[in-house]
């Protein structure tokens, strides 16, 4: 290419080093893509089941026709994870969470996962009431979801009626959408228009409230995990492709450089010989 410095032995060595390093990186990203691909398949299977479980649990709210109370306290729960290299997963969650908090500056915030916590701590440190980590390495189990639910419900610093679960909805293997899942407390369900049709023992209502909360959280965690695995796969695929493009470009550069060096050597030899 015009305007480029003349290739000599030293710059050829540099290109060789770069090539070696980028080839290694592309091997790593390619294997990460394979791993993420397997994890996505499993995570999607778990998500499909969790969706059925969550929808069954949420049917009561649908049938009762629950309305959010006017002056209700709402808790924001950001369902993220500890793991990176997954494209825009965490920044999208952080952006939507910041948008909500800008509109509701007094809202309490619970963050699940270190990645979103890092991003939200800078802008809204005073809203963060509690956070959880050790999330994202494996498919969330109901035991983990109910433990988080239990801790949040028993936390005296976190007072809330409704909850908004900000999570990433799995749209397809290449697309996710940050969405909000609504949680309605049993106190609002009991007030709803169609609830008069139901018979129940009053003493199970508190348990039902906790159960519904854990079920919603579980759905959000499992679906969020599936969205993250798919995004990681895409990110690693793009990284491998980009690395491949750089390798091609550098290889061409290297070969042209090598030929230029050989040509110059030949010219030196020939001019030297003809001078004799």
């Amino acid at each position, binding site marked *: 290419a015009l305007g480029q410095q003349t290739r000599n032995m030293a710059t050829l060595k540099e290109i060789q080093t770069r090539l070696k390093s980028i080839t290694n990186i592309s091997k790593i990203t390619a294997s990460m893509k394979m791993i993420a691909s397997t994890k996505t398949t499993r995570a999607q299977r778990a998500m499909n*089941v969790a969706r059925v479980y969550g929808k069954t649990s949420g049917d*009561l709210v649908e*049938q009762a026709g629950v309305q959010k109370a006017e002056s209700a306290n709402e808790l924001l729960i950001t369902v993220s994870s500890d793991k990176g290299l997954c494209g825009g997963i965490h920044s999208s969650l952080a952006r939507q969470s910041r948008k909500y908090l800008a509109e509701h500056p007094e809202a309490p915030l619970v963050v699940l996962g270190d990645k979103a916590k890092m991003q939200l701590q800078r802008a809204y440190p005073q809203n963060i009431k509690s956070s959880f980590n050790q999330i994202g390495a494996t498919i969330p189990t*109901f035991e983990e*979801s109910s433990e988080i639910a239990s801790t949040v419900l028993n936390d005296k610093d976190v007072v809330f009626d409704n909850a908004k679960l900000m999570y990433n909805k799995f749209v397809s293997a290449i697309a996710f959408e940050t969405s909000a899942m609504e949680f309605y407390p049993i106190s609002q369900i009991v007030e709803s228009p169609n609830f008069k*049709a139901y018979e129940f023992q*009053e003493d*199970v209502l508190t*348990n039902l409230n906790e159960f519904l909360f854990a079920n919603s959280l579980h759905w959000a965690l499992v679906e969020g995990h599936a969205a993250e695995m798919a995004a990681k796969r895409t990110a690693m695929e793009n990284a491998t492709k980009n690395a491949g493009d750089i390798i091609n470009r550098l290889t061409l550069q290297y070969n042209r450089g090598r030929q230029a060096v050989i040509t110059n050597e030949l010219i030196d030899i020939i001019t030297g010989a003809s001078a004799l």
Partner: protein
Amino acid sequence: TRLYASEAAGVPVGKLVVNFALPHESVMANKEVHQVDMSAVSGDLGVLADHVPTIEQLKPGVLDFIGDSGSQKYFVSGGFAIMNPNSVLNINAVEAFKLEDIDPQAVAANLAESQRLAASAKDELTKEAAAIEIELYESLQSALAGRAK
């Protein structure tokens, strides 16, 4: 206190549709059955089509689904069963296993272990946890015995 329905049901649907979901498995989805017998905190009950809408917390015990092909029994760890006005019965349980998949000897062994733990426990939390385990294993034993009859 038990609160009763103050609104009468609408037009009867005529069939009982069941959704039985676990966090890790969808056991039944939109399945039509005749009757579901369950062990609730408020007592045992059987649900038929167009049963009055009700919210029941499930005890660890047997869920019996009676349909055209006979009865299928599951032992559930606990959860909620909600009968809706549209004759749809939604059951969310945490764990459920078919009775035939449960090993009676393992149950007996675990029960003995829990009883030993309850007797030797020093703190309240361990004692309570052991008591819950004993209740579970005794319930399992009577469920398995009932099946053997």
